[in-house]
């Protein structure tokens, strides 16, 4: 590879990325409903068996409750989704909704009213306690 080809390749990289934007490819992923959240969790996490899910109204985040005190957190990432299995995640309820730490640099944010946010957060703790007791046999 010579310098001209290197420079040309870099120009092509930026041009193609620009065209992808201009064509409005990759619509932002949104979690449509609880059924989709459950499917994403069970497909993305080996052995995860979901019972039910909470999806915020704008589809920007979901919590899927599973067996044995495990919880799956889901958030959109571009046109796809990031799914993480967590145990006893740190959470914070506020007027903006529920913020849950997933272990990633980006937390999962659920736009919920304060009462619902508090309720889901408390359920996260309760489920984790059940999981601990089950682990202890």
């Amino acid at each position, binding site marked *: *590879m010579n310098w001209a*080809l*290197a420079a*040309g*390749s*870099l120009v*092509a*990289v930026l041009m*193609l*990325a620009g*065209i*992808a*934007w201009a*064509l*409005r*490819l*990759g*619509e932002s*992923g949104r979690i449509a409903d609880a059924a989709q959240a459950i499917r994403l969790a069970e*497909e*993305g996490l*080996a*052995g995860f*068996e979901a019972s039910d899910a909470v999806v915020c109204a704008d589809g920007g985040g979901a919590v899927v409750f599973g067996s044995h005190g495990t919880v799956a957190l889901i958030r959109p*990432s*571009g*046109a*796809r989704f*990031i*799914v993480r299995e967590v145990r006893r995640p740190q959470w914070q309820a506020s007027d903006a909704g529920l913020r849950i730490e997933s272990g*990633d*640099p*980006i937390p999962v944010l659920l736009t919920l009213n304060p009462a619902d946010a508090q309720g889901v957060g408390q359920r996260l703790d309760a489920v984790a306690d059940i999981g601990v007791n089950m682990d202890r046999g």
Partner: protein
Amino acid sequence: MAELPDPVDLAVPAFVALVLAEMIVARVKDRSRYCPRDTLTSLLLGFGSTVAGVLSAGMVFALATWVHQFRLFDIGYAWYWFVLAFVLDDLAYYAFHRSAHRVRWFWASHVIHHSSQHYNLSTALRQTWTGFFSLAFLFRLPLFLIGFPPAMIFFVAGLNLVYQFWIHTEVIGRMPRWFEAVMNTPSHHRVHHATNARYLDRNYAGVFIVWDRLFGTFEGERDDDRPRYGIVHNLPDFSVLRAAFHEWWGIAKDVWHAPDWRARLGYMFGPPGWSHDGSRDTSESIKTRWKVRQERRGEAWKKPTSSLSAQEAEAAPPPAA
């Protein structure tokens, strides 16, 4: 020494044109096939890989030339030697690629290529920056010992890489049966990039899928189990540096915290996901859990009772043909 062109350099304009064409198809058929941030990451990783390749090419070529002086046979530049070199280089690629998925040291370098959740032609260009560091070139050394000239091997290796570009697409469904039987195709390679338990660690072929059929690693794509792309623990963002180095960083942390030397070696050279306390998932543990679940659902599906929910019935596997 023969002067041979670099097929990859020559193919760059075609790569650009085909990515552009696939984007237009995606715009018409399914816009989620591409994601601008993912595409930019893939293309920057491809560009960086080319730069890294240029920086290490001299050392790799010098090593190949040094090994070549101990060759068993004198092999010239007749066309049929190119053909044989192409086939044997593809076998060496299979061995490398299988190791790249089964040994964490090589996986740390190769994971870049699998780190996108998209499967399109830009994913093909998402290539490693650390191939030289991971010693991936070792897999080609036997070819120089046999007697194939280094220039010939690097030429056919370039052709191999160019071939693999077009199979990174969802635009093409299945090729004619005879072609699917012998060659690596978009369908076979979609399986390779999938994280579905059924598809993990399958279809390592570069050009000829016959290697997978021969060595028992072939899995056909199924219409009832559409591939989901990426890695078991998908990256949290589109950072180029994270994609390029995250597994190396993971190895460093694991080795640092490992309780003993056996564990340190396991974290470097064990299969991806290996851990000294068994707390992490390997492809084997994922497959095992998946099979148990499939069997349980299969049993539930067979029961002639009303305990089967509509959802389970829908998920039940089709009867074997």
